[in-house]
């Protein structure tokens, strides 16, 4: 069925947008109401900020300020190169004014890495900013897609949904393929996270304006904002923003999708709206679709219209160990200790601190970690709130995991093959399509840690790939060695032949010379003549000596 759906979508264009019921998914309780009780608040300026630079190599940094220098808010501090072929780099800006103190590795609250190089900024509390250059509406209308892209890049915007891919690069790769549909992802499906919802219900016009700017940047034909049906306030705010006069003219549609985990995953969202199933080895841009988070859209608005680079983000702080959970507009580089303190942390009740939601989140080693551009939620879990799992039991073949898998995989079979370690079977069963959402983990009655097993197996598949490449390399070296030995042998034979030839040469030369003198080399007559001459000489000598002897007597 999906093949025909895909074909129809391609033929009809993306006009065939409607909400489909996607396979699988779970409905865990949301736990978002506590952090949504109040409006987004700004944090006071912390004493120290460790601004993450998204890298661990000093070589990929080009610093624009020195240690000990005084900087102002919004000032560009460094350019971090991404290490790809195009030499793209992402700038980092100062979140507040102060003095640069150090450049060192520090723990960062990021989904991918636990440590990054950070610039330590000692804030002076004055919050002096450099002058921003906002654009007038008329000027914005005239901006071309490429110019918008440049401003987005210069503001250092990356994917705020959690992936952290530089937005300008994503748009550019989309331009290469030709993007027809831009989807703004406001479906925050994971429990505990409410940052996007809070952003939308307060700043919907900015989000919509940012979405339109992104649409122009990637020259998409169609713009859609997708949101879950459980976020009523946000939907109302968006509807109002779309109907009223906004900063920019938009041709934007709002589509409400059924609330389900994981509806907000990029590929699941695309499948829900368009029916297109993007292969796991490809990106959605290959199908002409680009998906951006609403936080990214908001940041794009600020970058282009207000001229404000990316120095803060909305982060949800929640959990039972906090007295007042809420959404904060957090300056990048603020430590988690500081933020928990703002919410009234009950230290005695804190059992663990988690980055992200309760299903895909990662436990943080220490609360000294700092916030980076992809930190969407921090949970200060109270006692018994996110408990350790009961012991793993045997698989009872209930099949619930296959019922809930959004990628239509068979976690039961995948687990069996993970245990034996058969990479080819795993790949055939689609392990590379697994989005590691944790739905199968959640539903398993035997508490089997499925996602960990799949992550480990993916790593061992990668390792196997590397081993194969290494084996090929060794094979080449071995073959070269065989070739070298053969060549050496041939050469030594050749040189020995040469040497033998050269040692035989004087003999041959003498023989040829002799042949040139005499009548064709050695001849008996000549020899007998020479012998006769020699005998005659000896006789003459004897005759002379005997005559001498006779005379002496």
């Amino acid at each position: 069925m999906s093949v025909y759906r895909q074909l129809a979508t391609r033929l009809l264009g993306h006009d065939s947008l409607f909400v489909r019921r996607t396979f699988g998914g779970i409905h865990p309780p949301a736990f978002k109401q506590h952090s949504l009780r109040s409006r987004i608040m700004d944090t006071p300026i912390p004493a120290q900020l460790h601004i993450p630079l998204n890298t661990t190599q000093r070589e990929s940094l080009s610093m624009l300020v020195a240690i000990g220098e005084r900087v102002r808010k919004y000032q560009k501090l460094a350019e971090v190169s991404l290490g790809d072929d195009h030499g793209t780099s992402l700038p980092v800006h100062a979140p507040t004014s102060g003095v640069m103190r150090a450049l060192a590795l520090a723990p960062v609250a990021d989904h991918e890495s636990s440590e990054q190089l950070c610039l330590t900024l000692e804030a002076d509390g004055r919050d002096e900013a450099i002058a921003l250059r906002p654009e007038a509406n008329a000027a914005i209308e005239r901006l071309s897609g490429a110019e918008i892209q440049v401003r987005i890049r210069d503001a250092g915007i990356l994917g705020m949904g959690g992936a952290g891919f530089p937005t300008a690069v994503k748009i550019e790769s989309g331009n290469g393929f030709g993007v027809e549909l831009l989807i703004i992802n406001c479906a925050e499906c994971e429990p505990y996270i409410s940052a996007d919802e809070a952003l939308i219900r307060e700043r919907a016009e900015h989000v919509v304006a940012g979405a339109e700017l992104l649409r122009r940047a990637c020259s998409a034909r169609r713009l859609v904002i997708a949101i879950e049906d459980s976020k009523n306030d946000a939907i109302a705010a968006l509807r109002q923003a779309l109907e009223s006069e906004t900063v920019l003219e938009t041709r934007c549609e709002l589509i409400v999708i059924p609330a389900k985990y994981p509806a907000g995953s990029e590929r699941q969202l695309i499948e829900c709206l368009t029916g297109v199933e993007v292969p796991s080895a490809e990106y959605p841009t290959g199908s002409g679709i680009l998906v951006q988070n609403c936080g990214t859209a908001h940041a794009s608005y600020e970058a282009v219209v207000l001229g404000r680079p990316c120095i803060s983000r909305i982060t949800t702080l929640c959990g039972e160990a906090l007295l007042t959970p809420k959404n904060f507009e957090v300056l990048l580089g603020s430590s988690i200790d500081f933020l928990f303190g703002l919410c009234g942390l009950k230290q005695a009740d804190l059992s663990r601190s988690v980055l992200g939601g309760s299903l895909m989140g990662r436990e943080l080693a220490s609360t000294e970690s700092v916030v980076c551009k992809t930190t969407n939620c921090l949970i200060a879990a109270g006692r018994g709130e996110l408990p350790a799992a009961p012991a793993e039991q045997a698989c009872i073949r209930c099949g619930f995991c296959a019922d809930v898998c959004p990628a239509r995989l068979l976690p039961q079979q995948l687990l069996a093959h993970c245990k034996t370690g058969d990479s080819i079977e795993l790949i055939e069963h689609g392990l590379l399509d697994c989005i590691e959402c944790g739905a199968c983990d959640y539903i398993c009655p035997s508490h089997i840690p499925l996602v960990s097993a799949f992550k480990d197996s993916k790593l061992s598949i990668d390792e196997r790939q590397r081993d194969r490449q290494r084996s090929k390399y060794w094979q080449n070296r071995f073959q070269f060695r065989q070739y070298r030995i053969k060549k050496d042998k041939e050469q030594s034979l050749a040189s020995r032949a040469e040497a033998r030839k050269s040692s035989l040469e004087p003999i041959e030369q003498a023989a040829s010379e002799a042949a040139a003198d005499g009548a064709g080399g050695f001849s008996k007559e000549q020899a007998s003549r020479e012998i006769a001459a020699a005998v005659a000489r000896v006789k003459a000598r004897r005759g002379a000596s005997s005559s001498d002897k006779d005379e002496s007597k």
Partner: protein
Amino acid sequence: MTNTLSIIIAAALVNNVLLIQFLGVSSLFYGTRRLGSAVEFALFNFLVLFFCSLANSILYRYLLVPLHLEFLRLLTFVAVSALFATWLLRQLERRLPLSARQQGLLIFLSGGNSAVLGTTLLSISASQSIVDSTAYSFGAALGYSLLIVGFAALRSRIQSADIPKPFQGSAIALVTAGLVAISLLGFAGLT
């Protein structure tokens, strides 16, 4: 037409050669260890079963019966089956060398298989017309091959399962075969 179809279905499912009449069960256990090789094996067995059975019933009806040499039928059938299986195996070796690695046992399993002999004997006794004989052979061969492939798929699922030590290997295969045989009894209702 109706009769032919019902004969085919009956031969394939209701009176399945492999798990209802239990002929040639050794190939069920040896030939089904990997799905890929089982498919090749099943195909080979299908060809051997069908054509041997067909050739034998033709020989019987048009050669042995008119000459009143029915008592030579066992000898003839075994000779023809063995020859055909060997010839087919040689063809296989040449074209599909990977499969030829199992040549040692294939000849024994296919040519000397009681299923081949059994199908032939049943087909000549089951019906009087040559069309019915052909239908019976075809159905029997089809049922046999399908079951080999299905059982191989089952075993590949079992391979990755967590089986208790005493049951690993042949024991679980026998248990599975028994369960599949019971499930085939469900077809008994079809005429």
